[in-house]
């Protein structure tokens, strides 16, 4: 597969390490009332779609950027690639 890195352009997926669902960005608040339940769901409950999937890839043999890659798990078509840091900020993870 070729991942179109937002900064570096097309790169071979072999340079990357795969983590999993991009929902791992949404780490719950440890002080929430039901923090334990939220953390349970965060850690253990995942969708496993045959189709579009937003997932985290780490450019380990590259610039060390974490990326959010939107990929069709059936066709391997890559629909979008974003810097995970930008996604995290957009999802309200700024301090």
């Amino acid at each position: 597969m070729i991942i179109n890195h937002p900064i570096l352009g097309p790169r071979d997926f072999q340079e990357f390490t795969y983590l999993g669902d991009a929902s791992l960005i949404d780490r719950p608040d440890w002080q929430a009332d039901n923090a334990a339940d939220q953390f349970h769901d965060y850690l253990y409950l995942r969708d496993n779609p045959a189709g579009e999937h937003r997932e985290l890839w780490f450019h380990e043999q590259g610039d060390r950027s974490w990326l959010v890659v939107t990929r069709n798990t059936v066709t391997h078509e890559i629909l979008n690639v974003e810097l995970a840091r930008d996604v995290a900020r957009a999802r309200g993870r700024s301090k």
Partner: protein
Amino acid sequence: MGKFDNHGLKAISPLGGYEPRVDVFTGLQIREVTDRALASLAARQGSENAVKSAAASYLGGALPEPAGWGEHGVFSAWWMGPDLWMISAPHDSHELMAADLKQAVGEAGSVVEQTDGWCRFDMEGPRCFDVLERLCNANVRAGKAGDATRTSMEHLGVFLLCQAPGQVYSIIGPRSSAASLHHALVAAAKSVI
């Protein structure tokens, strides 16, 4: 700081010699480079512009753009990642460059000495393309001078700096694996030439 230049510990090269190693082939030379000091420079959060301008005054020129490298006088620098660069200078005159650089950028940047984290081999000669295509997936034939590519060679993550396309490259890899990287380069050269 003169005393740092003449202390009682004798340096060895990444390949374990007291002199840098040179391997010569028809149309290609692979040279171990040991005379460069290195320091990484990272921008502090929100100080991206400040660190760029402070570094520019220290280096005498702008920090390189993503996937690039450049030279300014004795200094050279390459892009390592977002808001992260490696600065290089002659070792004998700049063994303590990390401290000087930190002083130059102050609170705007984080500086880490990297001199001995790496080994470097310079590859020179008209057979560079043929040898590099056996080593890494970088599209060297489409490359230009000033490209700095992070790629891997025989499972080792390296920086590939293009000085002159098809003619001169620097390959910078992890120092502890210098022997493995050197073996890969020499084996590829023997394979092609």
